[in-house]
């Protein structure tokens, strides 16, 4: 086993690992990022070929269990109505993400104070404000300033066009007098830092062939590498090791040839996402940490939060050209974001536009929903479906519950024989009520926009793409895994910078906030470098 030493090792080259590495690189420390996946080639993405819909559901499926690429690890999610979605590569899940890029809102950090549920965060909106702004510039975010649902903020690039579908649905919101606004989207709408502008290919969630979508292999990583950070692809970390003093002293990983390697490090940073991070900590159990590394609180792997999604689609008489334009980006609505005493539940949800699909996806989805049959009458029905579908997703806030967990599966292992994660998740009563409310209100909007029929799916099973809460932050070591700037309470030179540290989930997509947090943690390390481990 070869052995090397660096100052900082980062595990995971996704959204958070990339932002963190870029920021910390200015310290000129020796930084290595170990990533189990490889560099992606945009020419390999499905929209390069005519069979893009089939490839998007197979080798580029959102579920690692369906994809089964060598970089993927299996995840036992049988015990969850919501299935895990991710991607394992340089760029992580941003390779597949829809790039809908809202920030959390001021109230999201204070839900205990405001609504008496869950916990307040140890940081607030103002803490992250400069880091969101920095991230918007690095990722190249498009949108429109002036959204009354947020404190004032700038957006670097003009918004993505709504297209006929988006304008139709916006009309529905206007009809009802409800809030909507063009989404912040991590999509270049004009040439930006060497990235070509979006050409409205459609399915962003199978990878962007144009390179307009801000996946971190295109945004942060080239700049981080120029600053001297080394990314080692195809390197899967098995465990983090500790010395006799209980400090992390490095990692053991398998390299591209499957050979076990040891990398010593002064600082260990985990950026493996809300499932990969607790898995790694639990796989790093030792005599000193028999229940898993950094797990004296017993909270590693607990409080898993998704955003339960309701997908609500309308069938319209008019063709809407919904397959043209970024799938999940267009507009959002925060009309129902906050707790409303008139509703029988707490917290709320946001809406996000869903554009239409290709003909195959439209046909299969409609078949599964009973909107389309085989045999006589098929073509008549299909004529009213293909290019006539569009709608919205309600993204519901999920409250932290200790029984929603990531643990180690007793049997399942990945390609290197490392125990795989097992998900156990129950949809709460509160989430169910939010889903129902979101479905009903989305139906109102779609009908107001002219939909002749509305069909919904909630919770959307494939939508386990926001992974949060499994190593939460807080000031009290009894009730949290890391402190207010991502440092493990138990292991002072171990940091966690991904969505695992979220205290609550908010009701918007988390990536911008995950990256802002990673930039914030990097800054805290820089500021506290002289007494980092005190």
């Amino acid at each position, binding site marked *: 086993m070869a052995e090397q030493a660096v100052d900082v090792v980062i595990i995971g080259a996704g959204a958070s690992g990339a932002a963190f590495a870029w920021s910390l690189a200015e310290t000129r420390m020796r930084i290595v990022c170990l990533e189990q996946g490889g560099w992606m080639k945009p020419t390999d993405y499905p929209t390069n070929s005519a069979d893009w819909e*089939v490839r998007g559901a197979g080798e580029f499926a959102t579920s690692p269990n369906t994809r089964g690429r060598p970089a993927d690890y299996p995840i036992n999610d049988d015990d969850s109505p919501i299935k895990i979605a991710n991607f394992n590569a340089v760029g992580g899940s941003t390779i597949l993400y829809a790039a809908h890029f809202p920030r959390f*809102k001021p109230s999201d950090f204070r839900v205990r104070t405001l609504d008496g549920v869950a916990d307040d965060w140890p940081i607030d909106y103002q803490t992250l404000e400069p880091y969101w702004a920095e991230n918007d510039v690095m990722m190249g975010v498009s949108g429109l300033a002036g959204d009354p649902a*947020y404190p004032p903020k700038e957006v670097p690039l003009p918004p993505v*066009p709504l297209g006929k579908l988006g304008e139709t649905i*916006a009309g529905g919101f206007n009809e009802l*007098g409800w809030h909507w606004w063009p989404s912040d989207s991590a999509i270049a709408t004009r040439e930006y830092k060497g990235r070509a502008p979006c050409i*409205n290919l459609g399915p962003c969630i199978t990878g962007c062939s144009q390179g307009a979508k801000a996946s971190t292999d295109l945004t942060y990583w080239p700049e981080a590498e120029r600053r001297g950070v080394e990314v080692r692809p195809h390197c899967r970390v098995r465990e983090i090791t500790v010395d006799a003093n209980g400090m992390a002293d490095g990692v053991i990983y398998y390299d591209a040839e499957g050979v076990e390697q040891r990398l010593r490090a002064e600082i260990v940073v985990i950026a493996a996402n809300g499932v990969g991070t607790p898995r790694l900590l639990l796989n790093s159990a030792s005599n000193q940490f028999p229940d898993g590394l950094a797990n004296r609180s017993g909270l590693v792997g607990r409080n898993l939060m998704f955003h339960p999604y309701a997908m609500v689609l309308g069938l319209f008489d008019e063709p809407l050209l919904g397959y043209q334009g970024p799938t999940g980006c267009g507009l959002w609505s925060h009309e129902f974001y906050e707790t409303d005493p008139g509703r029988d539940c707490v917290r709320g949800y946001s809406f996000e536009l869903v554009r239409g699909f290709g003909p*195959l996806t439209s046909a299969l989805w409609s078949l599964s929903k009973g909107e389309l049959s085989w045999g006589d009458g098929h073509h008549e029905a299909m004529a009213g479906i293909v*290019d006539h579908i569009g709608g919205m997703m309600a993204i519901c806030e999920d409250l932290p519950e200790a029984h929603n967990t990531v643990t180690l599966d007793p049997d399942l292992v990945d390609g290197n024989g490392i125990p795989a994660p097992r998900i156990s998740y129950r949809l709460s009563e509160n989430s169910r009520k939010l889903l129902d409310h979101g479905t009903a209100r989305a139906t109102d909007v779609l009908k107001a926009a002219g939909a002749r029929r509305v069909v919904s799916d909630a919770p959307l099973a494939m939508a386990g793409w926001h992974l949060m809460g499994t190593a939460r932050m807080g000031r009290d070591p009894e009730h949290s895994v890391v402190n207010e700037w991502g440092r493990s309470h138990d292991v002072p030179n171990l940091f966690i910078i991904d969505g695992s540290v979220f205290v609550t989930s908010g009701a918007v997509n988390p990536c911008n906030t995950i990256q802002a947090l990673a930039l914030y943690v990097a800054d805290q390390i820089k500021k506290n470098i002289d007494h980092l481990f005190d």
Partner: protein
Amino acid sequence: MTDQNPGSPEQQRALACVLDEIIPPNPDGRLPGAGAIGLGDTLAARPELWPLIEAGIQAIDAIAQQRGATTFAELPRADRRGVLDESVATAPVFLPTLIAQTFVGYYQDAAVREALGLDAGAPFPKGYAVAPTDFSILDPVRRRGAFFREP
């Protein structure tokens, strides 16, 4: 592709009839039936599918014989749907699998996509030009003013 189809001429004909039942030609002739686009050969040539197809054809032929025909393909069109529905009792995986596979093959077919008024090829690099939005449609929202909740 036909030479890779392991089926006999009768089996090939039966399969084409099944596919045409699943997606028949459009009465106006604008869209072909699924049995007429070479899909039968493609599906039959897949080794993991052929045993299921072969057994399914056997099952529907048997039901057709109970109804006085020699094979499924000999049945009048009006009777075929009923036979397929009935086949689920003896060959439960055959029909659902073929429906899914027919949809996949049919809606990826270039001629079908074009007939639907859609692009047949890869979306990239052509992409689509979407007109910029006139955001005066936001005026009602702007008039409403700030409404986020301050902690």
